[in-house]
């Protein structure tokens, strides 16, 4: 049975991602954040459930829609906001921005601006761990869009033939930018593709944090038994367009409503209340703490300096 503390941790993470995205979208609208910003709103349970199953030594590989993965893997939100604001105190000193946050210290090998680009990198991290004889798994987050890129097929095959400890986490949010999954795949159950490569594959309700968590725990165990890789297709839905400036007008209302009823935040809160027996006051306290941290993170980012041009020039001198 799940403890209140564990369920509260999950809820804290889901809520942090939710608040991070909504607050940063405000900063974007106010002009503090520029460039591309791909919110993870609606998909929070996938990163939260998977990362809860990972151990300290494990790696993750993230995507352009990567804020949730970073937070779930334990990134500091102040340094994340600072990166989004292009500040020197950000994870990439302001050189990377939203699509390139990486934090090797927490095993986060990096977000990626290229759809599918991180998949082979995760395979390589798993290969390295295997060659060194280390007990590590690599969770590779990628999307339904990336599943139609050649490197997905190649990498699934590589990981399979080399028995690598990889968890392919296919976040099927049903849209590749604006193209519906039904228009890009004959069979929208993408996990079935893994079977052709003799990879243990299944799908899970990606909005249900506990179901995702349980699936991921099972996958970690399979990898530890050297029977990896594993493919998990988490069915989920974006709460908006592809990025903050895309209103998502191509997404049918009824479908969005259906998934909003299955809001991962609501589901997680229900678990915390019903299984964890948390009181409304306890939940409010979690939320208040996260809000306070978020306010501090924004203050920190706004007050941080930009990198000096001279320091930048030094950094790229050898290029």
């Amino acid at each position, binding site marked *: 049975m799940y403890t209140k503390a564990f369920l509260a941790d999950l809820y804290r993470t889901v809520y942090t991602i939710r608040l991070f995205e909504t607050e940063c979208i405000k900063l974007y609208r106010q002009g503090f954040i520029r460039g591309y910003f791909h919110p993870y709103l609606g998909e929070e349970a996938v990163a939260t459930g998977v990362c809860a199953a990972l151990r300290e030594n494990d790696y993750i590989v993230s995507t352009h829609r990567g804020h949730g993965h970073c937070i779930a893997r334990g990134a500091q939100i102040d340094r994340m906001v600072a990166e989004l604001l292009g500040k020197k105190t*950000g994870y990439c000193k302001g050189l990377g921005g939203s699509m390139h946050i990486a934090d090797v210290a927490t095993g986060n*090998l990096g977000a*990626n*601006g*290229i759809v599918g680009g991180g998949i082979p990198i995760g395979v390589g991290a798993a290969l*390295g761990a295997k060659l060194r004889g280390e007990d590590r798994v690599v969770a590779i987050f990628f999307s339904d869009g990336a599943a139609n890129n050649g490197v997905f097929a*190649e990498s699934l095959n590589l990981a399979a033939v080399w028995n690598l400890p990889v968890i392919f986490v296919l976040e099927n949010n049903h849209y590749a930018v604006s193209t519906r999954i039904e228009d890009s795949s004959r069979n929208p159950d993408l996990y079935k593709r893994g079977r052709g490569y003799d990879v243990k594959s299944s799908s899970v309700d990606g909005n249900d944090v506990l179901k995702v968590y349980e699936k991921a725990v099972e996958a970690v165990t399979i990898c530890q038994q050297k029977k990896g890789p594993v493919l998990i297709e988490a069915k989920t839905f974006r709460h908006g367009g592809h990025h903050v400036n895309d209103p998502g007008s191509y997404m049918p209302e009824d479908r969005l409503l259906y998934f909003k009823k299955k809001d991962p935040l609501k589901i997680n809160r229900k678990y915390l209340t019903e299984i964890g027996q948390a009181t409304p006051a306890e939940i409010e306290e979690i939320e208040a703490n996260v809000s306070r941290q978020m306010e501090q993170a924004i203050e920190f980012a706004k007050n941080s300096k930009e990198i000096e041009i001279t320091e930048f020039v030094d950094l790229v001198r050898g290029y």
Partner: protein
Amino acid sequence: MEMTETKRGASEFTDSSESRTLMFRDALNEALREEMQRDATIFIMGEGIAERGGSYKVTAGLLKEFGPKRVIDTPIAEASFTGAGVGAAITGMRPIVEILFIDFTLLTLDQVVNQAAKYNFMTGGVGQVPLVIRTQGGVGNGLAAQHSQSLEALFYHVPGLKLVMPSTPYDAKGLLKTAIRSDSPVIFIEHKLLYMTKGAVPTDDYFIEFGQADIKRRGSDVTLIAWSNMIPRALAAAEKLAEENIDAEVLDPRTLVPLDTDSIVESVRKTEHAVIVQEAIRRGGVASDISSIIQSRVFDYLNAPIEIVAGMNTPIPFNLTLESATVPQEADIIQAVKRVLYKA
């Protein structure tokens, strides 16, 4: 390519060093073997490199010595096994990825250009990518349009990559060892016609720093700048020119990134004439960039416009007569030298 004692360049070895004659491919093999013996994080992967020992036998014997964990045959999935090299490199390994033909590196470009070349930058200088991509390129033996390209300019254009193009067994070994120890991604291009060439290689351990050109032949009348397989051709041209009392200096940058611009400029300042020879097509090539560097730094020393001898603007034809016609030959180099010296 014999060099006389007096004309020998900076690559001569120290007096104390013993040397023996090795083939280019064996010098590379020795570099791989020595580095793998030293550092257990080094492993090699590519197509047909293990049991088969590679198309050009560069990895022959490595499987036997280091086992299948460190010498890995891959499926034909260039983008993903190159990407796997990136992933292994950023997490503590030193992978060497072999891409059978440089033409096939085009399948890896996202992983090389968007991932490997940018990882250090995008992590604010924190992440390192000690990855070597060894590949084989250039014209020769009638391998036709998709197995004969000289694509160094593609990689030259991308910040964050080192670019190495050795011309001798000595350089090949010393530069490959440096490449393997580099913390930056390195594109290491071996010319298909050089694998069987021979040269002196010291028995002692040695390294060649990146960004140090080598004068392959000292001369005073004209500077011939060339790399990879254009070096033996430039040296042969230089010997013919010597018979006509034209004393050509042959400079090999050895690494195009970093490029030893100081040595190039110093040589041209001395000879006051420059001819740049590249096998790749002229348009958008490295030679054009070197030419621009020379004119901007030593314009006042030049006695003639800089000549570029380059490949024709065409895919490489299969027909052998046409194949030779598309890339610079000895006679083309000789004519260009005479033009800059106004002796044509």
